[in-house]
């Protein structure tokens, strides 16, 4: 490696450190002094004038904004040396734009001026790139690609990076692809780039996955002057006309309003399951006068209704209407009921085991095949209670 190549490599290294904001004062001084050690770079020292013109051009219609930039550049005594360094690496595969940025970042007032430019210019202005274009002059930004014959380590890596992105010209892609299988270092680079991309994407995805962006539009709507996030300009006259039409339509007779309400209710797709005309076979019949209704009989209808409704929400089993008396229950009883059940909803459930105590009757009811099934539990009185309440003793048959 020649002395000049050593210098350029060191320049590259220093520029990267400056760019990353990690350069020490000594390194900055070294950066400034390096170009002076190369006679070949002397011709480039007048480049600051080009840079000043570029900044002035970037400021465009707001020349007063350019002043702090120009002043800052003028104050930076090392600027010509820095720009020379930038220019020197154009022939070498070093990112000129980033080098310029690094140089500009040396002077805080420049940074502040750029922020000011950005903030005040409606269209984001990137002064750096205008400066870079001025520096490059006849040397296009694609210079590294055009200089394929002068590949060094960094250039090769840059090409591999572009190859990984599928952005190389076809002929170059083919050429590199032919060489890749035998170039383990390049293959390793490709793998590293792919892994880097995956890591970055995964990390960002994890960070943003649960983000609640619901409030964004509300804030933007407020920021752009809308009356509210749901406000639709121009809708108000239409909405007013609709309100008037509805109000006129609503001015009906009481009968018409009821009809309208009925029609609306009928149109609503509410889930309904109806069990009607249940024939409850196997119920014991009371022998006494209905005027002296025992306590449990008076409770029977509401209790069965409540139990049935609750169980219907839990059970939906297949099978026909049936009655399953538990041990001790009378299967020969005869009682009909006109009770009808209206269920608001039915949930699917599966019953694997069901046991009842002695003296409890299980009623299994179903309105047609596939209809909702109702299981009712009824606690039966013993013989003494029946007699006390005026019922005749019944012979219970064990099943």
């Amino acid at each position, binding site marked *: 490696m020649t002395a000049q190549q050593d210098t350029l490599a060191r320049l590259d290294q220093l520029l990267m450190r400056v760019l990353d904001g990690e350069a020490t004062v000594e390194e900055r001084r070294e950066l400034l002094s390096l170009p002076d050690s190369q006679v070949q770079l002397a011709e480039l020292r007048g480049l600051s004038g080009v840079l000043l013109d570029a900044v002035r051009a970037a400021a465009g219609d707001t020349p007063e904004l350019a002043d702090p930039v120009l002043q800052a550049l003028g104050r930076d005594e090392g600027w010509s040396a820095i720009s020379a360094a930038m220019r020197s690496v154009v022939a070498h*595969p070093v990112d000129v734009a*980033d080098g310029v940025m690094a140089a500009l970042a040396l002077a805080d007032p420049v940074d502040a001026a750029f922020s000011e430019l950005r903030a005040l210019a*409606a269209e984001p202005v*990137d002064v750096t790139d205008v400066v870079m274009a001025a520096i490059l002059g006849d040397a296009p930004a694609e210079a590294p690609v055009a200089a394929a014959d002068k590949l060094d380590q960094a250039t090769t*890596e840059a090409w591999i990076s572009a190859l990984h992105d599928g952005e190389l010209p076809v002929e170059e892609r083919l050429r590199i692809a032919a060489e890749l299988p035998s170039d383990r270092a390049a293959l390793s680079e490709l793998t590293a780039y792919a892994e880097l991309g995956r*890591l970055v994407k995964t990390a960002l995805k994890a960070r943003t996955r649960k983000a609640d962006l619901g409030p964004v539009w509300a804030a933007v709507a407020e920021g752009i002057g809308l009356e509210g996030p749901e406000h*639709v300009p121009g809708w108000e006259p239409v909405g007013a006309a609709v309100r008037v039409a509805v109000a006129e339509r609503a001015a009906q007779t009481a009968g018409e309003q009821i009809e309208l309400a009925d029609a609306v209710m009928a149109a609503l797709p509410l889930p309904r399951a109806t069990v009607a005309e249940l024939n409850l076979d196997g119920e014991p019949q009371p022998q006494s006068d209905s005027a002296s209704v025992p306590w449990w009989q008076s409770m029977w209808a509401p209790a069965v209704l409540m139990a049935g409704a609750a169980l219907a929400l839990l059970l939906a089993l297949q099978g026909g209407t049936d009655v399953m008396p538990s041990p001790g229950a009378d299967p020969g009883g005869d009682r009909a009921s006109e009770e009808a059940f209206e269920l608001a909803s039915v949930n699917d459930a599966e019953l694997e085991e069901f046991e009842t105590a002695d003296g409890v009757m299980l009623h299994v009811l179903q309105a047609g095949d596939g209809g909702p099934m109702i299981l009712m539990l009824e606690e039966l009185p013993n013989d003494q209670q029946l007699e006390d309440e005026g019922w005749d003793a019944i012979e219970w048959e064990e099943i």
Partner: protein
Amino acid sequence: MDKTPREVDAELVQAIRDGDPSAYRGLVERYQGRVYALICGMVRDKEEARDLTQDAFIKAYKNLDRFRLESSFYTWLYRISMNVAIDHIRKMKKRQHEAFDEGIAARDADGAIAAAHDRGNPDKALHRRQLNEQIFDALDKLSPDHRQVILLREVEGLSYKEIAETMDIAEGTVMSRLFYARRKLRDVLKDLLPASEAS
């Protein structure tokens, strides 16, 4: 025939220009997730990222008359979003220099100190979180322009041409910046990457 995303964007922009600002909601809801992700990669803090996402959309709306319909809306929007993020970073950096030694500790959005050196924790979720913090630490070490180009490429999957349009730079510069950004990331994250044959 279905419209292309670009045609839909153009229609929404035209609707806004024709006097219906509520049409902007379509553009916001279409791109807020992607803009948020990009800004989140730039500024790291989730709440800040959301605020900046809002700012970016507001700024884009106020400059919508400068948008050329023949261009793609999202690259234009990304450029504004990135500039909003970069301006924010610069402001924050100045504040940090005044009040905070950022070398002491990296804090996540919840305020917890990221234990970036606590490797080998058996808990997978914790390990993954630490790994992600390392990635963000590495991104933080990139200059804003390098971070920007990495995010546009790796997260948004933009082509060099689209990145060039978004950042208003030459395609060759995109290639160059991507290379440098990757080299830097590779150096910082070398422990997480397959061993390089070259090194």
